[in-house]
């Protein structure tokens, strides 16, 4: 009897350990706009689940017919926050949500909202690149293919981020600039070194002052004023950071930090 009790306690303990895993297992595909068949939905869910498990992030695909009067960004962020998506610590829940807004007209609008590690994996540039490919399929009504592609992209981006090289804007190659910089650095340093040496070999020069012979403590300042005369202000435009890579972020209505972009 005691043995049975201890076995059941162990079983309960194991069960309780599994609860956090179930806790984040919200539906990864929410097709409110009814763009997918049940079978397609199941396959995409399976793919997203695999990626989510592997990279400890929730990859979610949501379609909707209404934005409830919010911007698409706010709707995507709130959907992510309010439905408990994201894996990891509170306030830093990692995940990526692709929202498809289809109000029945020809034009659908799409938005990717990121959170936690998802922000690092999906850079602004990465979202735009992914958006181009996804938009091409979605515009043709290939919703299933788009869903599978989204899962592929999630895996690819998460893997790249895990390797320390998130998919980001390729740095511009500036070979001509490099050559100029190298030559300038070489010449400036060489001339500097030579002039320093030449100076050291010509130490004979006149002394400009005679402070060596100032009688210590003899200085008696008898008059002094510092009067402000005028002021001038110059301003220079700050270079926009469009040329830089990385992810830009904003704060959602629930106060959490999100990245993302529409396409």
């Amino acid at each position, binding site marked *: 009897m005691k043995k049975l009790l201890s076995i059941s306690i162990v079983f309960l303990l194991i069960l309780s350990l599994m609860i956090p895993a179930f806790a984040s297992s919200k539906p990864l595909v929410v097709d409110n706009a009814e763009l997918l068949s049940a079978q397609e939905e199941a396959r995409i869910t399976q793919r997203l689940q695999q990626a989510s498990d592997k990279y400890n992030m929730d990859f979610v695909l949501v379609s909707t017919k209404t934005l409830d009067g919010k911007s698409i960004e706010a709707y995507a962020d709130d959907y992510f926050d309010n439905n408990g998506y994201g894996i990891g610590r509170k306030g830093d829940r990692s995940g990526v949500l692709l929202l498809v807004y289809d109000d029945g007209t020809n034009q659908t609008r799409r938005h990717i909202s990121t959170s936690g590690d998802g922000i690092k994996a999906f850079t602004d540039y990465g979202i735009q690149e992914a958006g181009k490919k996804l938009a091409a399929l979605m515009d043709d009504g290939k919703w299933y293919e788009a869903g599978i592609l989204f899962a592929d992209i999630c895996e690819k981006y998460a893997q790249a981020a895990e390797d320390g090289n998130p998919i980001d804007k390729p*740095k511009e*190659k*500036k*070979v001509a*600039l*490099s050559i100029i*910089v*190298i*030559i*300038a*650095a*070489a*010449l*400036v*340093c*060489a*001339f*500097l*070194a*030579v002039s320093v*040496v*030449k100076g*050291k*070999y*010509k*130490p*004979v*020069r*006149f*002394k*400009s*002052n*005679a*402070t*060596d*012979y*100032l*009688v210590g403590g*003899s*200085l*008696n*300042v*008898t*008059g*002094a*004023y*510092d*009067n*402000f*005369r*005028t*002021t*001038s*202000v*110059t*301003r*220079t*435009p*700050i270079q926009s950071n469009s040329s830089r890579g990385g992810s830009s972020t904003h704060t959602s209505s629930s106060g959490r930090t999100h990245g993302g972009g529409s396409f």
Partner: protein
Amino acid sequence: MAENLDYKCPACGGTLEFDSATQKMKCPFCDSVFDVSALQQKDAVLDTQQADMGEQPQEDSFNWSDSATQEWNDNGMSVFVCKSCGGEIVADENTAATACPYCGNNTVLSGRLSGVLKPDFVIPFQLNKAQAKEKLKEYTAKRAFAPKSFKDENHLEEIKGIYVPFWLFDSNIHASVQYEGTRVRTWRDSKYQYTETSYYDIYRQGDMSFNNIPVDGSTKMPDDLMESIEPFDFSQAVDFQTAYLAGYLADKYDVGMEESIPRANERIKHSAEDTLRSTVQGYASVMPRFSSVQLLSGVSKYALYPVWILNTDYKGEKYTFAMNGQSGKFVGNLPIDKAKIIALFAGVAVGAGALAGVICKLLGLF
């Protein structure tokens, strides 16, 4: 014929020299050591005794009075007879102490430093020839870009101890200086970086005193070289006595006090600007706009300062090295080996270029 005098050792009759290590007169032959002032007194006593005995004084020891009217010949050269060997020494009009070319006897040419020409003070040599040679070796050894042949050809033995005539100026001044100062503040918003520069009119006036600003009184010594081995510490100066010159060369001034004043004024003016500048604080930049200096009182003195000098010729150019005989500060321009400097240029260019290349690569520029 001009007269010269040297100091004979009372013990053995050899010629005495001033020894910088002990700051006393020393006989190189019997190693007897005499205090400078004691020797002077002894000489004076001897003179008096000789005068009392009705003998003709044999040595014109300290009778400077009429010596300014010594017979110079046309080109400013004079002939002296060496007291030791009887050889004739030819010296130019500014030489006050020298060595006999025949017997090496050190001698002081009397009359050259007498009357108005007599210095008020002298800083005796503190460092001897061996130390000067050591300093020169050290100086050239440290400078790797000097040609090796230059270092090898240096005739260290020719380094000479010279008492150089200086005019010393004491002054109390009143100075007023106007400066323009700026303060800079920067901030930024989302679009612009702002720089605010505020301009201030700053004024300072004050009194200060300078003691013993030296101005080279010899045309033989380059003025810039003499200023490069400054400062001299006047606290070690003593009242001038001819005995200090024994064993060294000495020149009398050939640049007058009046001619030396402008240089002293120039340095005083810059010192006043710099000194008052140090009381202006809290600005990003301070530039003097106008300054005026009034001399409240000024006194000049004439002194001999100790300098070790080496003149060398290298490939047709003259190089002069000088060492402050008091502090040991050693200065002199050196030739630079062309091949070595080209190697330096190339080496630094390659090194800096490679470093810049690595940085560009890391930044992903290529």
